[in-house]
């Protein structure tokens, strides 16, 4: 669709896993996912580890090719673009990964990290311009004063500073689409808010679309009430819609469990929340037949064990894949 910057259509990503000498089992890390990120908006992809959310992010970045289905950028299939289109795409789709330590080259200074990109794309014609652009990028992500940071190596920066550098690196090309994969998960609680605040201000300024992948639902609220959420589990999308609707009235039992599991800084609320899912998540190789949550769902009935529910709208801006609806 024209107003979606990125779209996945009926995407499957299948991995073979050898389960014995001669036997191979296949599992779908991404299982029939259709998802779009609207222009200039934020989509939060919520899920636990193993849900496939990181794979989805990487598909939109062209890092993983779907086994089936299409991945589109501005309407064009990423994996069949011509050279020119692909170059445009590359410049416009950027990545902020999770690990602030593994995502930076240990032998490059801050200046080299940002400078190498600016020079590669020939965005600066003189040394002065280069310095100015680097300092501007650093300033925008809150690494002030830039001169304090510009000659530092990653090991001299704290986790929060490294992530800010990652953000600077992602915005220096003014992309139209950014994927942030659990960017604050590895940081201290007190620093998370600051980083998200910076990121959210930046994308609002630049009008960039954002795919924010995380398992921490409450943090996502910092981006404002105007965003969409999609909840993933074992490769499938279980629920999708506007954040207001889903947080106030979660329809899928899994979403309900997620939200009720979030620790609330209010000791009085302690007694009223209980766990509602039974048992641990199954291994992706042993996906239950029928609904993907059927082995753990307290509301499962006959249909759930034999038939996979399709994603259906139950209100404008709210879709659910559950037989209860």
């Amino acid at each position: 669709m024209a107003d979606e910057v990125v779209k996945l259509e009926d995407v499957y990503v299948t991995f073979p896993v050898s389960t014995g000498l001669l036997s191979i089992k296949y599992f779908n890390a991404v299982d029939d996912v259709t998802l779009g990120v609207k222009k200039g908006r934020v989509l939060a992809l919520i899920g636990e580890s193993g849900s496939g959310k990181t794979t989805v992010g990487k598909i939109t970045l062209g890092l993983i090719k779907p086994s089936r289905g299409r991945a589109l950028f501005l309407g064009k299939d990423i994996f069949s673009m011509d050279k020119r289109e692909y170059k445009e795409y590359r410049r416009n789709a950027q990545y902020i990964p999770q690990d602030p330590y593994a995502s930076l080259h240990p032998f490059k200074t801050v200046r080299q990290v940002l400078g190498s990109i600016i020079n590669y794309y020939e965005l600066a014609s003189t040394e002065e311009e280069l310095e100015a652009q680097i300092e501007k990028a650093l300033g925008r992500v809150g690494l002030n004063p830039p001169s304090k940071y510009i000659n530092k190596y990653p090991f001299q920066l704290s986790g929060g500073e490294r992530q800010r550098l990652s953000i600077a690196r992602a915005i220096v090309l003014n992309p139209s689409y950014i994927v942030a994969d659990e960017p604050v998960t590895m940081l201290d609680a007190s620093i998370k808010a600051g980083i998200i605040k910076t990121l959210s201000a930046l994308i609002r300024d630049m009008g960039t679309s954002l795919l924010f992948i995380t398992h921490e639902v409450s943090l996502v609220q910092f981006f404002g009430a105007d965003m969409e959420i999609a909840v993933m589990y074992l490769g499938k999308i279980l629920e999708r819609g506007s954040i207001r609707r889903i947080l106030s009235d979660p329809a899928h039992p899994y979403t309900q469990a997620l939200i009720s599991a979030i620790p609330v800084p209010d000791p009085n609320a302690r007694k009223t929340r209980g766990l509602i899912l039974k048992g641990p998540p199954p291994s992706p190789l042993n996906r239950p037949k029928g609904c993907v949550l059927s082995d753990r769902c307290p509301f499962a009935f006959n249909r759930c064990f034999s038939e996979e529910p399709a994603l259906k709208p139950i209100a404008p801006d709210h879709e659910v894949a559950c037989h209860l609806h």
Partner: protein
Amino acid sequence: MASSAISRRVRSSLNSVSSILKALRRNRIAFAGFIILLIYVGIAVVAAAHLLPKIPPPRVGYSNIYAPPSLNDFPWYLLGTDYTGRPLLLILFYGTPSILLVAFIAALITVVVGLVLGLISGYIGGNVDVLISTIIDIALTLPTYVLALILVVVLPISLTNDPLVLAGILSVTSWAGLARAIRSQVLSLKRREFIDVAKTIGFSNFRIMFGDLARFMAPYIFINLLVGMIGALYGYVGLAFLGLLPLSSENWGVQLNEAVSAGGAIYTSRGVASLWSSIVIIVLLQLSLISLTSATDEIFNPALRRAVEEESPMEEVSPG
């Protein structure tokens, strides 16, 4: 303008060099090795630039061959004479440039070929990987020394005198082990997030391989360069010792050979100076190279260099 940029780059390179040197000084063994290597290089340069006195013509006669050390024409007769009656110390000095050159070029060939093949086959994967891996496997099964021996004997002397050819012979299969090691490192590194980011930024494969990945493996490459030189050195001296290289008394290995055979150094005392001095200069060079390998961290790890620059102690002050 451009000049300020260039001067900044020059200044920053000089800064890195000086901080590397400062960091090196912390590691006394490596620093000593570095100085010794510098001395060897200095001698080689001096010899190659014809700044040393010319070698006097050979003299025959029992009293002239393997003459004991004397203070004649200081310092050239300090080690006495060799089997051609010429001053040993001077001869050994003259032998330095070619041996260093051959060893260095051989190591360079090993490292460059190994790096390029390892990078390409690890990063690109697919059929290219299959092809290159097969070539690597074949190379690994070839018997290195036997092959080198055969090549040296079979090729005409005009070729084997050329240091480049000699270097090539000495590195004919040594790149294979490195290529394989680099390939496996690349296979695991390419899954790391900083490579994903490099891809999304849009860097070309070439840039990612030879920019980011190679840079990441720089310490490993450095060590392999040094170790390669050590191996090539032994190979070269060995081939000469076995009498397979053109007879030239400047060659340390030839000196060794002659000391044992002509000087009867193992049995009498006459060729002893020749025998031992050849051994010592070979071993000393090897030692200096090896000690430099322990300095890899000091040279490449920015953490150590920065600590030195800021003159702060490297203790772990990281309470939790």
